[in-house]
């Protein structure tokens, strides 16, 4: 196994430990917060016998470590128990919400990356020009603006005043929209026939209209942050010897900027962005609240308000695990981009 493989393995093992830690913390939290789960299920007039029966049916009469073990075993089987409130299975419910949150997060990230890196580069390569000042002011405002407020203001401006975008909701998911492009690949009917192009376009349009304001709301902070980091990093890198050397050996400016300077600029940017993923997910939670976007965030807030522990646990484990996985990926990327780390 190469050193990169070893590194990946080590990081993954650490990730598993962290996920176990997340589960443990949730278990501890669950038992230090006031109120027994039974109180939230049993009717108020339930007899002690009834309460005991309910506790038994939830496995709450077992010692804590057994419950903990059971939870982990069921997790490994892809289950997360049943919601106290709606009695439905938690795992499918959480995973049904995941696409909405991911869509939002990915849309915001894509917007942020597409905008911020060129913006940062332009800002750095045209220092002290109009675009540079504009980018700098934008990035400063961006990191200082609470996104939920931005969301509310965007709604007031673009949805209420101009009616250009819908105020809220997600009537169509991205996957549903793509679903209109189902291809029929049957031997007798020919294959790869794109179906419903019209309805696909309509659905995509619908999705885009609904996702625009939330994605801007969520993405602005990151656009600003990455612009700022890219600009300062790029300025640093452009002053380095290898840039001059690259130019001296005849590389065109674009290649020098993007293949050399930007690449090294992105190394620290990637770490910071990795560290900020939590902020992205946190931001998604509040953005979902502003736009009634039916994702994990709304689910968690509901679950917390109802003390629906299996649901709280399930969604937080998924978020924690997602965070850990993405961080391992980011670390891997970091190592790949920055070979000195492995030594």
């Amino acid at each position, binding site marked *: 196994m190469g050193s990169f493989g070893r590194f990946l393995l080590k990081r993954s093992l650490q990730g598993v430990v962290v996920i176990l830690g997340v589960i443990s913390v949730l278990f501890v939290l669950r038992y230090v917060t006031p*109120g027994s789960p039974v109180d939230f*299920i*049993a*009717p*108020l*007039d*339930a007899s002690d016998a*009834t309460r005991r029966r*309910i506790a038994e049916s939830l496995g709450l009469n077992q010692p804590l470590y057994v419950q903990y073990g059971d939870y982990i075993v069921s997790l490994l089987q892809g289950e997360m128990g*049943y*919601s106290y*409130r*709606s*009695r*439905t*299975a938690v795992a499918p*419910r959480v995973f*049904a*919400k995941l696409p909405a949150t991911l869509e939002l997060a990915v849309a915001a990230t894509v917007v942020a990356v597409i905008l911020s890196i060129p913006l940062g580069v332009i800002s750095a390569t045209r220092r002290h020009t109009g675009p540079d000042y504009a980018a700098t002011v934008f990035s400063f405002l961006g990191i200082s603006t609470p996104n939920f407020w931005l969301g509310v203001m965007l*709604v007031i401006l673009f*949805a*209420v005043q101009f*009616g250009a975008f*819908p*105020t*809220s*909701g*997600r009537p169509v998911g991205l996957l549903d929209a793509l679903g209109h492009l189902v291809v029929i690949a049957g031997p007798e009917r020919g294959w790869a026939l794109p179906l419903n192009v019209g309805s696909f376009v309509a659905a995509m349009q619908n999705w885009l209209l609904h996702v625009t304001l939330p994605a801007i709301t969520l993405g602005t902070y990151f656009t600003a942050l990455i612009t700022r980091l890219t600009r300062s990093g790029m300025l640093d890198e452009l002053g380095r010897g290898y840039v001059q050397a690259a130019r001296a050996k005849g590389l065109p400016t674009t290649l020098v900027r993007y293949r050399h300077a930007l690449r090294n600029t992105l190394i620290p940017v990637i770490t910071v962005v990795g560290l900020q993923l939590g902020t992205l997910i946190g931001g998604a939670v509040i953005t979902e*609240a502003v736009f*009634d976007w*039916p994702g994990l965030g*709304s*689910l968690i807030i*509901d679950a917390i*308000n*109802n*003390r629906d522990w299996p649901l709280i646990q399930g969604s937080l484990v998924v978020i924690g695990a997602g965070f850990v996985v993405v961080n391992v990926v980011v670390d891997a990327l970091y190592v790949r981009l920055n070979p000195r780390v492995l030594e």
Partner: protein
Amino acid sequence: MSRDVDRREFLTLAGTAAGAATLAGCSGGNETATETSGGSTPMDTGTPEEELPEPETREEHLQRTNRLVHDDAPWIFLNRQYSVYGKSADVEWEARRDERIDGYAIEPTGSKSSVMITQSKMDTGLDPHDHRETTTDNIVTQAYEGLLERDREGKVVNQLATGYERLEAGQVQFELRSGVSFHSGDSLTKEDVAFSINRIVDPEAGDLESSQSDQLAGVTGAEPADGDSAVIVNSDGINPVVFALFATYCDIVNKSWIESNDAAYINSNMEGTGPFMLDTYEQDVRVVFESYDDYYMDAAPADQLTIQSAGEPSTRVNQLLNDETDIIVNVPPQNISQIQSADNASISAVPSTRIIYNAMIYNREPFDSVEFRQAMNYAIDLESMVSNVLGSFGDQTGQPTLEGFTGYNPDLDPYPYDPDEAERLVEASGYAGAEIELHTPSGRYLKDLEISQAVVSYLDELENVSASVKQRDFGKLVDELLDGELETSPAFYLIGWGNAAFDASQTIIPLLTSDGALTSYRNDRVDELMDQAQSMGGES
């Protein structure tokens, strides 16, 4: 509707009703008096309050109780809440008093055949016997039906039953409609009905600890009657409100379907007899129904009905104005004129069955003084609050019972706004300089926080009282109120109470008798009057 406040309200009723079950002969719902009181009112307790003659009928008892409560002011009487809906020009529909939206009554106009409703939250699972919130109710009620039903005005009408009668003190019988089928095609049987009732009241019967058991308070079980299609329901005691309860609660389910599926399935699928059948269920996002072709009456006017949610009222308003939805719930006052003046939408408002009040716990300082409590009522300008905070979508109240309910006392007016009198009373109470804190939920009731803030600002204007608001998590607040200990409750809090039975007893007993689940008050005379009322059959 009482379900918002939770769980315990009818328990006490069950207890008191049982204790007073000395007389036979009491009819069900308020509109369906079939018998008159068979006995005389006991005349043994205490001196009559003031100079008034002893009440005689049940109605008089209830009215007298209301007078007592008005004078003794255990609450700051606030407003009757309105249900204010917005509806698009694409549908015809009128709001009901009981906060439910009946999809069957919505008529799409023009070329549209589908209808979209945006409420404040989604369901907490689709099991019709395992929830208590209006929001879930609104979803479940499209596919499930009960034996009886209420019309827009709150009158009891038949649904799956074609008739009902009291057989004896603790026993009533329902005749079932024939030719009714579930969405799966199974026919409705009397076993299904008995099972449905038992599933709610008996944990063993349906393998469910139903949170609705107290909604059918007093009911002990049901059994299929002899004959083709009748069901006998047994109660513990006379249970004067049993028909009223069945007009509001108890959806009928398919016994074999329930027994052959687990809780998770029952909570994400539907098998009812209603005009709409479930098409797709996206939990927490939307529920889509389609019209049930084999419905025993005319098929619903809408082919498709979608219910979705938006927590923020202004968001719902925007959805309505942008033609994204057809009906929205709980339009906040500040948006009413906007919807009213839009050409694609209008307001449908109706007084609801909910009363908003501030409880002042009777044995906690400074609220143990009647003068102080009265002063609180004089101190607020209720009229101004209703018009400014609620945009006139509310009625002032001066007693716990709402106008139009059985037991409402028409002689009682709301307390007038008289800050001087309030200050005088505070002086007289000996609690001048009192500092009080009003605990309030936020976003639970229409403008609850704003109402609380308005109340407190009026109280704070009194020279000799200082008041502040404390915003509370609703769940926690209710836990404190329901734990059976007055000591753990805040001394002063805002809460709303819905009474879907349209009977004064369903408000006074849980909220104002000594054993009431949510009580803040104790007055032996009130307890006594209510005991008597509940042992009487019939009313006007």
